[in-house]
């Protein structure tokens, strides 16, 4: 044994797969005729080391953090809420529609609060049907929440084009919130409010799920629904609650994105954060701190990747591919680690016997 079990574990689960994935990415970049060293230098430079790039990467985490919170809550409770994209976009549209008029009529903080509440409410409302079907009819929520998501994307477009369209422009989009009325940046501009709220949301969800009675009940339902029924928990009620909270957080993600960054929503705009964050949260093993790290790393990669794409003339989609390769690498690492653990168990069993 050259390396201890802890070091071996780190090698197998994090460092090894990461290096392998980067090497694979480099090969692909070479095949595309791009200098991998230049590409990665650009990503790190523009995504992490340059002040403006870092700023952009941090800003981008805001909606992703809310979605991560939404998914951690649902997944820990054993609910596959894959309707995040629809819930997000509806939240964004509702917040965008309300923000400009409310900002005129109300104190700014109250207008923001009202937008948050409305976005959370529409998100939650959009989850009622899948939640009800799952809780009382036993219908698999993967499909129903995906369907609601598609329906929500179309509905968001309808709302933008026919209800909330900015009368001042021919482009189908909502009224743009003046920059002065958007969420402020804290700490001298370094920390957007949305990011702070997103961090709070993730940490809050993490705390609720690990430290409170409510979270413990949700985890029991998620880990073993039969044990939950045996222990007298209200499984349908908890299912409805999980869906409402998770979808509400996804709706908030939309509101934060609109109030903090976008200012409006254009028709046919769908950043599809939901599906992107699912694997990140999964790799973090539903741990809030891990999710924050992964979300930030993803932001750096995507901001730096966009810059590198512009500079080196490769398409922007390289980021997507790198994320997929990294995911595959980390997943493979986990498989290897499980196998090593099983071998260790077997060896320990044999060794223990021999010693006796």
């Amino acid at each position, binding site marked *: 044994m050259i390396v201890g079990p802890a070091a071996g574990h780190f090698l197998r689960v994090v460092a090894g797969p990461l290096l392998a994935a980067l090497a694979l990415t480099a090969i692909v970049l070479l095949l595309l005729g791009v200098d991998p060293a230049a590409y990665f230098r650009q990503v790190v430079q523009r995504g992490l080391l340059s002040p403006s790039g870092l700023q952009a990467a941090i800003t981008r985490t805001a909606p992703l953090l809310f979605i991560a919170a939404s998914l951690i809550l649902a997944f820990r409770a054993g609910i596959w809420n894959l309707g995040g994209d629809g819930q997000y976009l509806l939240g964004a549209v509702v917040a965008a529609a309300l923000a400009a008029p409310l900002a005129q009529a109300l104190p700014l903080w109250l207008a923001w609060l009202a937008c948050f509440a409305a976005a959370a409410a529409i998100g939650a409302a959009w989850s009622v049907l899948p939640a009800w079907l799952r809780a009382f*009819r036993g219908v698999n929520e993967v499909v129903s929440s995906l369907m*609601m998501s598609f329906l929500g994307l179309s509905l968001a477009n309808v709302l933008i084009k026919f209800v909330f369209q900015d009368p001042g422009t021919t482009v189908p989009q909502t009224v743009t919130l003046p920059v002065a009325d958007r969420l402020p940046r804290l700490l001298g501009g370094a920390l957007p409010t949305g990011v702070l709220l997103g961090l709070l949301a993730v940490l809050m969800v993490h705390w609720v799920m690990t430290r409170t009675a409510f979270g413990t009940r949700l985890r029991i339902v998620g880990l073993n629904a039969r044990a939950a029924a045996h222990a007298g928990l209200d499984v349908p009620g908890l299912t409805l609650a999980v869906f409402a909270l998770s979808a509400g957080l996804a709706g908030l993600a939309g509101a934060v994105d609109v109030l903090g960054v976008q200012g409006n929503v254009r028709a046919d705009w769908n950043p599809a954060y939901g599906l992107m964050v699912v*694997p990140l949260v999964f790799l973090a093993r539903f741990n809030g701190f891990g999710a924050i790290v992964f979300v930030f790393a993803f932001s750096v990669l995507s901001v730096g990747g966009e810059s590198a794409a512009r500079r080196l003339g490769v*398409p922007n989609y390289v980021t*997507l*591919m*790198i994320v997929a390769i990294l995911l595959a690498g980390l997943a*493979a690492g986990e498989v290897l680690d499980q196998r090593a653990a099983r071998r260790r168990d077997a060896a320990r069993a044999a060794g223990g016997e021999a010693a006796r």
Partner: protein
Amino acid sequence: MTDLLTPAFATALLAGAITAGVPLLLAGLGEQMSQKAGVLNIGLEGMMLAGAYAAFVAAHGAGPWAGFAAGMLAGMAVAAVMAVMSVRFGLNQIVTGIALLLGVEGVTAILHHLKFATTYPRLSPVASWPLPGLAELPVAGPALFDRPAIVYGAIALVAAMAWIYRRTYFGLALQAAGERPSALDAAGGDVVRTRAAAVLAAGACAGLGGAFMSVVAAGIFVPFMTNGAGFIAIVLAMLARGRPLMVLCGALLFGACLSAATALQVAGVDAPVDIVQMLPFAAVLLVLALFGQGGALPAALGEAWRRGDPLGK
């Protein structure tokens, strides 16, 4: 409203339903087999997209039949990754599928950018095989019986799938792998091989469906062109309760809804595309809400299997 009853509108609607429905049908049949075997194949969309791109490239160089073959192979290549990760190694099926989808989206978009970003070539229309006699019928003739051969092939696949499920050992093994893999194992079957075969078949079908989209329906490849069709196909498979014929019905219904906007334009009605696009999803959710019951899906759907699992599922 009398405009809507013209033969031109009916033909456009029917033809559009077929054109939009065949990819859904192919991918849905594939997904159905995969789900029967207990694998929820969320990466279906990625397999379609890979098929669409590979088929476009091959058809561009060597004609539509090479395109279809390339599409199937590309879909199977993506499916092979899925099979290794989620069937052989037991990684979570949903997460594996999503990761694959993201990867394929990235790769196809890059390749398309590098190869065709400046030229944007178009394929010439695929020759149709008019069925003698039937093709001359009014309305139904041009819409149903004067189509490329692959359309007839897709419909024949419905019967082939039904035959596999009812008349072969493989069909039996599929059902056991999805309901109770340990029973298949104890009976001398091979759970991993059965599930892997089902996933590969799903990849081939989805790849062919993607090939149809780029080669026959559009004549061009656009990044992300599948645009949710794979997810619709997953839903079709889930609602079909294991019956291939139900996938056909669902695919035509969805296809009609997807193409209704175009057909309405033919009839001179300018209906908002977004509202028309909501129809199929709303219809499915309505069906789920009214008649949806659990238990129609295989008991072990989505669960990794390993021999000697203490719970013995």
